[in-house]
């Protein structure tokens, strides 16, 4: 783990440094947070230019950089906005995929897209703005499906949850939701859904330690997984928040859903715990009809109980929760180092899968086939629109236009193309079934 000496002589690990860069980028554009959380920030708040320069130099994942830049730009006003155009441009340049050569002028265009977003009026990042940003700049940044569909965080909702002692909290618990869609299967996210690995790839999680009476229990009957109690420690600014959690990690036999459920462990709960509600689910699940085959989602209800400290649950969404999900995207794509214990767990899981040869392979093949056909179907509906539009216009025109025949042929071509693709999927399914059958024969 790398160490670095800060200007004040303080030594920070790479992970701490990365966390501070994200926090600073938030604080630089949100003066109201300095007022509320001054007692726990306890360091100088950087100017927007300095915060962006640190963001540029950091290895914070591109999605977090983009969201910090868009949100910061929308929140800035007047001269500040003018002054950060160049730093914003520099941060964005660090997020361009290495295999792409993008001229400066195109990157200037991207910054102009931010100006268009600010004209819409709302001075913070909204989901509709993210969609517009991605749509207007994906030729530069080559966003993945997961990046495109990323949503975080909607923390405006709430619910009246009870404390670990079964008492009302008085006010609603804050509901935090973040999600994205992925082309990878749910099993690809298993290592990252597993809470034991959160400290390995999230900068905000410090520890997930098995409690002395945690009684780790592997669950062998379906759905497989484990039950255990952990002490979770998250760091935000200078504060360490430690919460005892009861965790249930599960994987459905057909791997169509993997999830982790967490609640405050009632047996380990004391008045020293800063929250009295901390419950939710992190899951990766096959869901037909979405923009991609798999939805990865994290929901969490939080209620702050420590009246002696400012309510840090108000920052959980902007800091830890969305960063955890963003890191999950890059980890699943192999763009950040995979933790050793995760590799071991993966290998063990794969070994288990090989042992079950036939059934798992056939289930996977059928699942893949259905995903492919559904995707093909959705795409074909879009592809039919232009020739059908032309066809109807030519038919309803005031004069003869024999080119409607061409439109009809185009419609036929779309049908032929998509039928051909579906036929390929059918052939692939048939091959997979054949292989599974061969495997069974070989086994005996």
């Amino acid at each position, binding site marked *: 783990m790398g160490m670095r000496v800060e200007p004040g002589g303080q030594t920070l690990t790479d992970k701490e440094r990365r966390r501070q860069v994200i926090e600073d980028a938030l604080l630089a554009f949100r003066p109201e947070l300095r007022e509320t959380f001054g007692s726990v920030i306890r360091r100088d708040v950087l100017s927007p230019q300095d915060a962006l320069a640190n963001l540029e130099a950091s290895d914070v994942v591109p999605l977090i950089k983009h969201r910090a830049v868009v949100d910061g730009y929308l929140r800035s006003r007047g001269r500040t906005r003018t002054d950060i155009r160049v730093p914003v441009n520099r941060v964005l340049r660090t997020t361009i995929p290495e295999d792409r050569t993008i001229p400066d002028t195109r990157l200037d265009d991207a910054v102009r897209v931010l100006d268009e977003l600010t004209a819409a009026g709302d001075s913070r990042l909204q989901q509709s703005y993210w969609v517009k940003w991605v749509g207007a700049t994906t030729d530069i940044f080559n966003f993945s499906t997961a990046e495109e569909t990323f949503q975080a965080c909607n923390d405006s909702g709430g619910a009246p949850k*009870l404390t670990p002692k079964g008492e009302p909290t008085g006010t609603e618990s804050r509901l935090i939701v973040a999600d994205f869609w992925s082309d990878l299967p749910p099993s690809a996210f298993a290592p990252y859904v597993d809470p034991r690995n959160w400290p390995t790839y999230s900068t905000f999680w410090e520890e997930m330690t098995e409690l002395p009476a945690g009684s780790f229990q592997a669950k062998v009957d379906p759905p497989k997984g484990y039950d255990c109690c952990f002490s979770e420690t998250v760091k935000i600014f200078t504060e360490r928040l430690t919460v005892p959690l*009861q965790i249930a990690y599960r994987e459905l036999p057909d791997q169509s859903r993997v999830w982790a459920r967490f609640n405050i462990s009632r047996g380990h709960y004391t008045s020293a715990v800063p929250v009295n*509600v901390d419950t939710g689910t992190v899951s990766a699940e096959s869901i037909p009809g979405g923009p991609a085959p798999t939805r990865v989602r994290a929901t969490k209800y939080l209620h702050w109980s420590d009246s002696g400290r400012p309510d840090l649950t108000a920052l959980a969404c902007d800091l830890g929760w969305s960063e955890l999900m963003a890191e999950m995207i890059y980890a699943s794509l192999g763009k950040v180092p995979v933790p050793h214990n995760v590799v071991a767990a993966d290998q063990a899981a794969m070994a288990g899968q090989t042992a079950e040869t036939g059934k798992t392979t056939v289930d996977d093949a059928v699942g893949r086939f259905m995903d492919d056909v559904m995707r093909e179907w959705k795409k074909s509906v879009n592809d039919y629109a232009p020739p059908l539009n032309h066809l109807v216009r030519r*038919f309803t025109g005031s004069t003869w236009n024999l080119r409607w025949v061409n439109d009809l042929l185009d419609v036929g071509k779309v049908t032929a193309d998509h039928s051909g693709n579906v036929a390929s999927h059918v052939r692939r399914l048939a091959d997979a079934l054949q292989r599974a059958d061969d495997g069974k024969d070989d086994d005996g």
Partner: protein
Amino acid sequence: MGDEKFAEIRPRDLAVVWGRAFGQLVDLWTSGYKSLIETGSGENPAIGDEGGRFVSSAVSSAASGLEARNMKGDSFGEVLPDGAVTVHEIGPAGPPHGPDAMLMNCKVNESLVWPRPGDIYRGQVFDAHEKVIAEISVDAGS
């Protein structure tokens, strides 16, 4: 009608003819689709989201007779007592759903969930005729 006269006819002059033919095709497709939906609705109730919301065209104003039952936690396997989840009508679902479709919401009575653990609880919504009209899931407990 001579060949020359026929050549002068524009497609839209024959709109009644091809429109009716096309209309019949659309009617056929629509009927097929509707029967598929109706057949499906007999076997596959509406699917709710994890917030406990679902859309149903089978409830109209009889929401007061709806009950959520068989609510079982998918992580810990605990079962909620009847009445822990109640179903309420929010209002018309709006497009792309039909005019009869209503948006429904499930509310959790947390005091009835206690001391069961927080979990995603899945179950069914039954109408007054004991017919399952929706498969729902809610986040309940803590």
